[in-house]
């Protein structure tokens, strides 16, 4: 298909390299160097989508990051990207793009019926329409999500990968236009490490769209020469297609580099995008400026675009947005676009100029070029819904608030509009720099930097090209010097023109035939469909703070962050309230400057690399044995070992019974281990555990309970005295890191006088726990340690060999049965395990996982920190107050004496026996004493652990119940969803071998 609107004599696209693509399924052709937007315009297409709220037909407004309308879905399937700005997406061969928010297409959109109900969508419509009754919210939300569904997120796994890189530099330059290039140049000459980033594939910024000269030659020659010199500096990193999107504390800058989005064939070995996280000594912001649209009636019709965008399409892409243009402007600078368009053969039908007098350097040149100017005119009406057909001009009344006199209709096929310029202060604002309102240009400009940054060029309100170059050279030199590099004189500035865009007239709402809000819409924020009428309504309803107006109307929100709308909204509010703009205030621009994909945030931290996994040295054996695993902290622990098609329930019943009947083996490697040494070690243990440690002799071990300073149980475990002043502390598997941090904190900050040294030795050992009546017989076959009860009593440890390797064996028990925990060097773990398994065959040794471990310990009423406790449970609540020494202070002791802790109605630890021995309570189930027909009921506690026990021959549970320590024998009920109620009796939590004969055997 012919590109009717392609200019052959200008533009930077490569006419030798045609590119085929599809838009809404139809084939079109563009050229290498095009964006999707420029290629669509070359094919005469303006209508690309529908608006967010009203489903109004929308066209292409801008030519870069500021684009609020032309958001497209790129590709389909797993690689699809929603809401891509057509103005930034580089065209590649075979590219498939579709409209978003329009079904079946932008031309015939079903949602457009919303326009008929526009009265239902005023400012704050979310709040007014969808907030009552609360019950209906899930339904409303569905409707809103569908209506608000701009693009479609991919549903399949992402086939691409993404990178993250960290970098340091002396000077980071954000933006590769004239000011940025100049700044990079002087910084590089000083020897500084420079990072220069620009969102475009080509450097040059506004110069790519300009026809100006620098030192008498085309500006692009200067760009080329500057880049050549920069490439010669080894310390300079040049990043095209890289957008600086976030500016955080202490000059931490986030950049997003696009690596394959512009390629037709995506190489497998290249990341799609790469996120750079840069710590910069000094920053130069050279982010340019964004043109403001004028707020006139129906200013969103396809074919109405920013004057600077029209200029960019003509000069940079060699595309005519149309054949007959009307310029609507409030400033002199826009005539530069008109002149360039005229030069390209576009007829300028008229220039509607809201200024009382049309003057200024570009205006004068336009007059000489024969352009018809209508000064002191407004826009009465716009013709054409899906494409502008004509614009009606009418003189402005003296006060500028309405139109007067005769109107005239001017036929056109596109409109270039300019309402002045906004310096792109987003990054500066993100850096928490203070903004100042410049009344002359009606724009916010940087005032005071808070971080080590400076702005240069248009983004700080320098409007002429020569001024931008001068700014940049000075900023680069200053930044390098501030980073400690030699003073390089900025040198003389290359010669260039230095015209800005003034004079201008700040008419924030251009009046139309009808008052604002009647017949037609004056759009302020295109992306969020916010009109001047919405802003006025918000003010009438009493919203005075700009922050409130913003949230109520949603202007300047979402991905757009007010790039084109911010100052226009402020101007309208200022006018309505009769206050100058600085008194209205400005809003803060938040990161990201443009949207960032989740893939880029995730980087390589996905799939197997999402989180670290810890494996015991016996892990491979467990995998071979077909274990199911569960996560405990970062550890993968065997959960149970199903045989054949065994269910989890069956496996756990079998493992539990086999252990109590003969012998079971558990991988207990994951227990945390902290080596505690030093002359004050025992004093330290005394302070961090609730119980006393001074009587613990070498060779002995003791259970300890550790509290936080708030008196709540934080960890428990067995600590052994290895020799004088040397202890080995065991923590829970998940709590090891927190416990070490907790101990270090007290040691370093409260008790630095204690000579105690802590080392984590968790990874140094592999541990197998043998449990069951045959544990001793089995172990005795492979060890030289005398295991007789007299030589090796309960709660002691012995050193010797097991399976021929050095071992430390603890006689401790978490199962309540005769048990030995065998610790060997981690490297010997698998050997030890395999030896015990093969020698244990004659005892039918059964490997068991964490689930069986839980059943066995619960039968004994042993708590698990994090299951029976949740950060609100004290030792008193657990009935473990005997473990709290009265002879010494310990962390948390004082808190146990607070009145709340002594309340007899606190939730306390109990056992539960369901009336029906086959009924297994759900963990987390709430308990009540008084049943009612329906909730709410007074809840008195909850189930913390619940199992079926083959050893008890019935179900049982552990729970926390208000005043439960004194309620043994009483009934509680667990009302379940669906109306079923499980009746239970409160009991002592020790169900199995209450005398402890088995574990001491």
């Amino acid at each position: 298909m012919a590109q009717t609107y392609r200019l052959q004599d200008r533009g930077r696209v490569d006419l030798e390299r045609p590119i085929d693509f599809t838009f809404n399924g139809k084939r079109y052709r563009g050229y290498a160097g095009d964006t999707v937007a420029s290629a669509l315009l070359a094919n005469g297409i303006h209508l690309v989508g529908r608006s967010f709220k009203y489903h109004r037909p929308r066209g292409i407004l801008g030519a870069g990051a500021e684009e609020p309308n032309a958001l497209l879905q790129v590709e389909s399937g797993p690689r699809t990207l929603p809401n891509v700005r057509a103005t930034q997406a580089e065209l590649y061969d075979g590219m498939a793009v579709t409209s978003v928010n329009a079904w079946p297409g932008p031309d015939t959109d079903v949602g457009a019926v919303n326009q008929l109900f526009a009265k239902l969508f005023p400012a704050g419509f979310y709040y007014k329409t969808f907030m009552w009754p609360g019950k209906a919210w899930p339904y409303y939300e569905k409707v809103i999500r569908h209506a608000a569904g701009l693009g479609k997120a991919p549903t399949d796994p992402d086939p691409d990968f993404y990178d993250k890189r960290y970098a340091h530099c002396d000077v980071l330059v954000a933006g590769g236009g004239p000011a940025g290039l100049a700044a990079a140049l002087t910084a590089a000459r000083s020897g500084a490490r420079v990072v220069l980033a620009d969102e475009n594939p080509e450097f040059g910024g506004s110069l790519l769209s300009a026809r100006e000269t620098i030192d008498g030659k085309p500006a692009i020659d200067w760009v080329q020469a500057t880049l050549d010199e920069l490439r010669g500096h080894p310390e300079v990193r040049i990043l095209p297609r890289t957008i600086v999107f976030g500016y955080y504390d202490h000059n931490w800058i986030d950049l997003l580099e696009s690596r394959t989005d512009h390629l037709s064939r995506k190489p497998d070995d290249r990341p799609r995008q790469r996120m750079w996280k840069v710590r910069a000594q000094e920053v130069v912001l050279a982010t340019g400026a964004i043109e403001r649209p004028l707020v006139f009636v129906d200013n969103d019709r396809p074919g109405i675009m920013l004057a600077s965008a029209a200029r960019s399409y003509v000069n940079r892409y060699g595309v005519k947005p149309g054949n007959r243009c009307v310029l609507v402007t409030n400033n002199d600078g826009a005539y530069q676009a008109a002149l360039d368009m005229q030069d390209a053969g576009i007829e300028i039908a008229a220039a509607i100029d809201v200024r009382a007098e049309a003057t200024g350097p570009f205006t004068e040149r336009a007059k000489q070029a024969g352009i018809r100017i209508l000064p002191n005119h407004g826009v009465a009406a716009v013709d054409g819904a899906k494409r502008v057909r004509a614009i009606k001009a009418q003189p402005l009344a003296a006060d500028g608030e309405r139109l007067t006199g005769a109107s005239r209709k001017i036929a056109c096929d596109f409109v270039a509009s300019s309402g002045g310029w906004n310096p792109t202060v987003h990054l500066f604002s993100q850096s928490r720099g203070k903004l100042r309102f410049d009344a002359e240009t009606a724009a916010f400009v940087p005032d005071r930097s808070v971080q080590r940054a400076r702005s240069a060029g248009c983004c700080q309100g320098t409007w002429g090209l020569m001024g931008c170059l001068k700014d940049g050279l000075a900023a680069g030199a200053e930044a390098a010097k501030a980073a400690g590099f030699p003073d390089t004189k900025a040198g003389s500035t290359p010669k260039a023109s230095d015209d800005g865009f003034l004079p201008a007239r700040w008419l924030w709402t251009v009046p139309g035939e009808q008052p604002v809000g009647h017949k037609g819409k004056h759009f302020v924020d295109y992306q969020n469909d916010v009109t001047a009428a919405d802003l006025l309504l918000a003010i009438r309803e009493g919203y005075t703070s700009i922050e409130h107006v913003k949230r109520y109307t949603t202007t300047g929100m979402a991905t757009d962050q007010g790039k084109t709308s911010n100052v226009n909204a402020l101007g309208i509010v200022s006018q309505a309230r009769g206050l100058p703009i600085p008194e209205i205030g400005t809003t803060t621009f938040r990161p990201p400057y443009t949207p960032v994909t989740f893939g880029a945030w995730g980087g390589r931290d996905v799939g197997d690399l999402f989180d670290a996994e810890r494996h015991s040295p016996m892990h491979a054996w467990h995998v071979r044995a077909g274990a199911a695993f569960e996560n405990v902290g970062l550890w993968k622990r065997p959960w149970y070992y199903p045989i054949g098609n065994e269910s989890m329930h069956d496996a756990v019943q079998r493992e539990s019974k086999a252990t109590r009947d003969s012998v079971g083996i558990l991988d207990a490697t994951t227990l945390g281990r902290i080596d505690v040494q030093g002359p004050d070690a025992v004093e330290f243990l005394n302070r961090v555990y609730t119980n006393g440690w001074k009587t613990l002799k070498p060779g002995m071990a003791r259970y300890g309970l550790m509290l936080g300073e708030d008196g709540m149980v934080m960890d428990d475990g067995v600590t052994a005295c290895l020799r004088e002043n040397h202890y080995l502390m065991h923590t829970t598997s998940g709590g090891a890191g927190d416990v070490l941090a907790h101990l270090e904190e007290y040691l370093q900050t409260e008790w630095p006088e204690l000579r105690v040294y802590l080392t984590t030795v968790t990874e140094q050992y592999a541990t197998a726990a043998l449990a069951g009546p045959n544990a001793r017989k089995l172990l005795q076959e492979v060890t030289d340690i005398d295991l007789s009860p007299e030589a090796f009593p309960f709660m002691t440890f012995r050193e010797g060999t097991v399976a021929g390797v050095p071992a430390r064996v603890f006689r401790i028990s978490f199962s309540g049965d005769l048990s030995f925990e065998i610790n060997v060097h981690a490297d010997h773990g698998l050997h030890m395990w395999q030896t015990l398994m093969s020698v244990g065959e004659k005892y039918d040794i059964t490997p068991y996982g964490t689930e069986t471990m839980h059943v066995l310990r619960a039968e004994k009423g042993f708590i698990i920190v994090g299951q029976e406790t949740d950060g609100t449970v004290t030792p008193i609540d657990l009935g473990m107050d005997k473990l709290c020494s009265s002879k010494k202070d310990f962390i948390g002791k004082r808190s146990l004496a607070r009145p709340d802790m002594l309340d007899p109605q606190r939730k306390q630890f109990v056992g539960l026996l369901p009336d029906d021995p086959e009924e297994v309570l759900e963990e987390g189930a709430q308990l009540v004493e008084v049943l009612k027909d329906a909730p709410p009921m007074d809840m008195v506690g909850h189930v913390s652990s619940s199992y079926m026990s083959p050893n008890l021959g019935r179900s049982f549970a552990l729970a926390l119940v208000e005043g439960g320590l004194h309620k043994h024998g009483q009934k509680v009920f667990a009302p379940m969803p669906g109306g079923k109620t499980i009746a239970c009796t409160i009991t002592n939590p020790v169900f199995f071998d209450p005398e402890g004969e088995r574990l001491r055997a």
Partner: protein
Amino acid sequence: MLLIPCPYCGARTENEFAYGGEAHKVRPEHPEEVSDEAWADYLFLQKNTNGTYYERWVHAHGCRRWFNLVRDTLTNQVHGAYKIEEEPPKVDETTYV
């Protein structure tokens, strides 16, 4: 992302550190002699100054040492770091309203 000057390692990125709240709060030497109210103060209340703040940090993913930092909580400007046993640096203190 703050840049935090660990007194033992030098300047490192914030995500290597963990925050420890207000500095120079001393655990009572004899907690059992402290009133319930004073103990609750010690346990639960922090100054939470809007301005110059003396606070504890630990270089959790580095040297594992605790130290103190003087930071402006509004601007995040860091005025200096010092070891637990050291005196704080002299700083022109600011409190915002």
